[in-house]
């Protein structure tokens, strides 16, 4: 008997229709991109060859999709079984987040009709961080499909297959912890090759992988809190604050480590002074710092940790902090040299919003039809 159950409520609701409208607009520009080329819809140029399709859809979006990864670590590596009820919705969100990241990357792929070239071993350049990111993300999407398969198999009543799968699932779960560790740290490493174009406050060279993985984990835990809080409100389910408060404690540790690492690295590299120069980059850095410190302060107190509302505020702050860290490094303070500027075009933004809308729509539909959310004890 599964501990999960479908919500079984109506799929087509007003919010769903609103998302569909955004998807429609994004879809329109998406078609245009594949009819006339990237230049017709985006503001990408010779200096800013990566815009929000890479930086939001892939770099930030996959960090938002780290909930499954963070929980897999907690539940299966550190054996905290009590968080088990949160795993399945988190895996679903991760699957959708990563799938949409891949989808977004496809829009951004300049030579999309040759995408398979990256999968041909004789083409591989083992020096390339991008190769690691590409292959690892693709592999992780497959792993997430397998990790989520039990929900689907339960739904269609494939008991036998389910049993077989459950026997070997541990292997996939282990891979599901390893792969994100690899490619999330590599997303940081991408910045190393960008050299002087990355602002010194974010160009930490050898430390990029460490900072990237720490933000991935903090964002992963925060998104679990965020999603759970929303399904509590949105689907009128009983609150899971007790469980979430526990995660809040983990986040405190992670933020503390991140902030300490960040400042020590900057000190070691002799860049602390840059924080107070008052230019755009230094202001962004301070904003980022504040967004990390607020949740730290909130979550330090057990009372605040145990209140659903403050917990949610902390999680949202964390998500903004982690996203801003990555946006700052890859885009906001990125400087390819004189003569270039970038601000995403409306079609570019709409395609990204369309992808997010699609992700949310699929999530809503799936939790209503497949056993994803944990069965409530006093339902």
């Amino acid at each position, binding site marked *: *008997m*599964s*501990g999960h159950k479908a919500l079984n409520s109506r799929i087509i609701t007003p919010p769903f229709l609103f998302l569909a409208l955004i998807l429609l607009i994004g879809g329109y520009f998406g078609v245009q991109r594949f009819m006339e*080329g*990237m*230049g017709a819809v*985006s503001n*990408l*140029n*010779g200096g800013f*060859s*990566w815009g929000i399709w890479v930086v939001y859809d892939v770099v930030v979006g996959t960090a938002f999709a780290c909930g499954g990864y963070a929980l897999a670590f907690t*539940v*299966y*590596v550190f*054996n905290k*079984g009590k968080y*088990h009820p949160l795993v399945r919705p988190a895996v679903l969100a991760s699957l959708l987040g990563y799938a949409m990241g891949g989808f977004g990357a496809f829009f951004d*792929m*300049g*030579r*999309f*009709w*040759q995408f398979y*070239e*990256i999968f*041909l071993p004789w*083409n*591989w*350049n*083992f*020096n*390339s*961080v*991008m190769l*690691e990111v590409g292959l690892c993300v693709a592999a992780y999407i497959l792993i997430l499909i397998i990790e989520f398969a039990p929900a689907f198999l339960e739904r269609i009543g494939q008991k036998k297959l389910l049993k077989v799968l*459950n026997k070997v699932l*541990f292997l996939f*779960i*282990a891979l599901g*912890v*390893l792969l994100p*560790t*690899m490619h999330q*740290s590599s997303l940081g*490493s991408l910045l*190393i*090759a960008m*050299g*002087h*174009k990355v602002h010194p406050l974010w160009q930490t*060279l*050898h430390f*990029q*992988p*460490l900072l990237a*993985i720490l933000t991935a984990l903090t964002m992963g835990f925060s998104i679990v809190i965020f999603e759970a809080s929303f399904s509590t409100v949105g689907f009128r389910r009983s609150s899971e604050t007790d469980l979430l408060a526990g995660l809040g404690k983990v986040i405190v540790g992670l933020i503390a480590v991140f902030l300490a690492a960040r400042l020590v690295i900057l000190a070691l590299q002799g860049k602390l002074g840059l924080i107070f120069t008052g230019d755009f980059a230094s202001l962004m850095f301070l904003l980022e710092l504040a967004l990390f410190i607020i949740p730290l302060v909130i979550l330090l107190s057990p009372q605040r940790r145990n209140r659903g509302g403050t917990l949610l505020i902390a999680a949202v702050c964390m998500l903004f902090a982690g996203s801003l860290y990555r946006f700052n490094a890859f885009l906001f303070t990125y400087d390819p040299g*004189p*003569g*270039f500027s970038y601000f995403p075009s409306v079609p570019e933004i709409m395609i990204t919003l369309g992808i997010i809308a699609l992700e949310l729509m699929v999530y809503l539909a799936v939790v209503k039809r497949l056993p994803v959310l944990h069965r409530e004890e006093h339902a």
Partner: protein
Amino acid sequence: MKRRDFLKAAVGGATTLCTVGVAEARPNLEPTENAVGMLYDSTLCIGCKACVSKCKEVNDMPPTMEGDNTTWDSAHDLSGETLNVIKIYKDGTARVKDSVVDGFAFEKRSCMHCVDPGCVSACPCTAMRRDSLTGIVTHHADACIGCRNCMVACPYNVPQFEYNKLFGQIHKCQMCNQAGVERISKGGMTGCAEVCPTGATLFGTRKDLLAEAKRRMTLQAGEVYSYPRGNLSDPFHPHEKAVPHYRNHIWGEKEAGGTNVMHISSVPFDRLGMPPLEERSAASIAESVQHTIYNYMALPAIALAGLTFAVRRNTEDDDHEGGES
């Protein structure tokens, strides 16, 4: 006890994956023995753009038209149809050539054919390659997925993607030696060097060009020097001219591991729009980090073994406790 050890291995392995102690840092790549390149002497350049138009001819690219102008190629930066461009530095009244104050100067931008190229290092599909003999960096569109990592990893923003075409590709200068052109392999020189009227763009081996650049640094300003044109190793009808005040800096001797295309000038290079580069190449740092983490996939393998063990134990616990899944 045993189980704790495995847990530690799992977590340890996973953490090592992202905290890097760079065991074997790879140094910058060295110039290839017979590397060919170009020397661009900004003080000789008169901005005639003969090199720009010859480049378009050799590489079969259309002239770039801007606004109402239909009379001449008005490319002002590298693009999918411009692999070589002449830029200008201007200050104040811009009257005196090669003067920092109230002066102007030219600067040529094209692929620098880095000794340790960021584009080659970053490309996942080996679509950017450095020739092991000539050191020339070429692009191979048949393997390229258009991820544009070469563009972000190039310190000089050289590779350019054709955003305006649905089936566009990356373009960059390949020193006139790509398949179908092969001017260098056939013993010739680059198009731009061939047509340059003043010898501002000079073709030759990197060694010879570096020696020539160093010689120019030692000349007395004002004395007449016989500047070779076209090909350094075969100087025909030199260009005689008084020596300017050179800055004692050969761009590309050391920057980010050096380049095969080197520049000299009397205006500081940051004014000419060259990027702030250290001697260590970003490619060498990125690869060191990458290889420390993924050396023979040993770390990931150890981490996976530990993780598998831990996950297996912990999912079994679930079963024993009669938990779900």
